[in-house]
């Protein structure tokens, strides 16, 4: 495949087709819509340069998910200084755009507690419960052992158990 010919169409088609998947993943990691967009755009812009090679491996999803994860874990750039826990502040929205989940989010204590977790723990929860990846694969993605993944999971769940929501769930109630 030559970059000049097939690459742009292929890349564009991928972004159009799979961009939302990446945005969801990034949103769950960051808890911030703008941050998620920024992160995904950055990863895709960097991936464009090597798209031919990425495509040859037939696993662009895996590659880009890894890229988003790395970018999230090592987010040290301009936006990082403005990144804040959604547990502390209301979510931001574009002017004029309605967010129907906002009233619900205000009450979503589990979600807000999730946002206060350390990045590694939060990433482990997202990879395990949203992406349904096994611990070994999560460990490879995060560059740690599966035992560490389990440790992160355990700690994260222990933290979540301290919420009123979790106490209700554990007591047999509903959310």
């Amino acid at each position, binding site marked *: 495949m030559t970059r000049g010919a097939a690459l742009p169409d292929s890349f564009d088609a991928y972004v159009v087709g799979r961009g939302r998947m990446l945005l969801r993943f990034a949103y769950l990691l960051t808890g911030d819509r703008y941050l998620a967009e920024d992160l995904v*755009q950055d990863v895709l*812009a960097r991936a464009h340069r090597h798209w031919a090679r990425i495509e040859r491996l037939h*696993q662009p999803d895996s590659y880009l998910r890894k890229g988003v994860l790395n970018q999230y874990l090592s987010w040290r750039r301009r936006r990082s200084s403005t990144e804040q826990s959604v547990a502390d502040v209301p979510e931001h929205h574009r002017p004029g755009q309605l967010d129907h989940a906002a009233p619900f989010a205000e009450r979503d204590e589990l979600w807000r507690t*999730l946002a206060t977790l350390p990045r590694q723990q939060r990433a482990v929860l997202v990879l395990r419960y949203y992406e349904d990846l096994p611990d070994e694969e999560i460990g490879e993605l995060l560059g740690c052992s599966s035992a560490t993944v389990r440790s992160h999971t355990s700690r994260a769940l222990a933290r979540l158990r301290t919420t009123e929501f979790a106490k209700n769930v554990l007591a047999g109630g509903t959310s």
Partner: protein
Amino acid sequence: MIDLETHVRARLEARALDAPDGSGLLTAVHVRRRRLVRRRRIVAGLAVSGMLAAIVPVGLALSDRDDTVRYAAPIPASVPASLPERIADRPVGGYRSAAEAPPGRAGLLVAYSHPAAGPTKGESLVVGVDRRSYRVLPIAETSNAYNSLLSPDGAQVALGEEATDGVLRILDLRSGAVRRYPVGPTGWVRPAGFSPDGRWLACSVAMSQAESGDALAIVDLRTGAVALRGVSVGGAVAFSPDGERLAVDRSDSILILDRGGSYVGGVPSVGPLAGDDAWSPDGKWFLVDHLKPDGDEYTLVAADFHNSPGQPPAPLVFKRPEMDATAGPTFLGWRSDTELVFHEPGVSDSTITVRSVRGGPRTVLTTIPGPFEVEGIDAAGALLRRVDSRQAHEPGYGSRPTSYWVLLLAVGAGAAASVALAARTWQRARSRHRRRAGYVG
């Protein structure tokens, strides 16, 4: 536990629906990609600029060090020619070396001993023509410094080291670089006289380990070519004003050679040549030091006795009672066709003076204070024509040279460029590692 995990999974799936819908993502990605490309180009440009900033000045500095010997006479009018009215005293801790902190052109070269330098230690001092700069030559012994010669333009010093390797060393006072010229087969090399343009240097060279076996070497400082002639050089060698001929001191006569070392003629003399500037600027006379029991008489001898320029002026007489009992005056050069510059020892201080060939009162240019015991002295002959002397309030003993800051800047830029490149390389290596680690699916 199971219930909580189920709820976490459900909540994440529910919240995932609130993620941005991705409209406009493609346009945003391409905008960012173009910005990224621009940024990469800027970073690459900066890295290349940094490398060039490191390489070019270093290269220039190195090339300047390799080609530091300049031969251009006449000396530009912008070159200062000023000596201090009085040589400043030796600083506590001593001077910096001219090789480490080049002073620029020098007007005087003084081999001396000084009480502050220790009872037996002597140094060889150059005094800059900015009348402020003082440095020592990078040679150890005062007795050897006596043999050092300052070039006519004050930019170079032929080091009078007691070399045992047959190598002539030329120190450039503007850069601190030392150039080495293999001149003789073995033993010492004694500089005897610069040509007026500073390109040629006549040396006395040992041809064997024996003290007596010496020869005349005429060194082209531009090319390193050496012409060796079997002429024993006891004293000074003076080049003619046009640099084409050499006058070699032969005690009772003066031997005249062309620049290639071929014999041209001889002139009877009443005494040894007065120094490497003994040939008068108009080319008509040699100044010879006619030693008398009660003092020194500096006499002009016709350079071409077949076509005598006329009756020479009366000798300049220096009576011994006027001076130190053991040291006589030293001729330094010509201030004009009729004015001579001497170093004259005194009872306490010694002086650099100007005297007319027709006699009359002397003019003191510079005073060398008493603690300095002058053992040898030379001056930049071409600069003497317009040198003046002024009071200098703040002597300079050697700040960092410009080349030091240029090199420092270059090294800094190089280090910055290296760090940038290393960071970039590391970033790429990390990206590669992550890419490999990413394909786990």
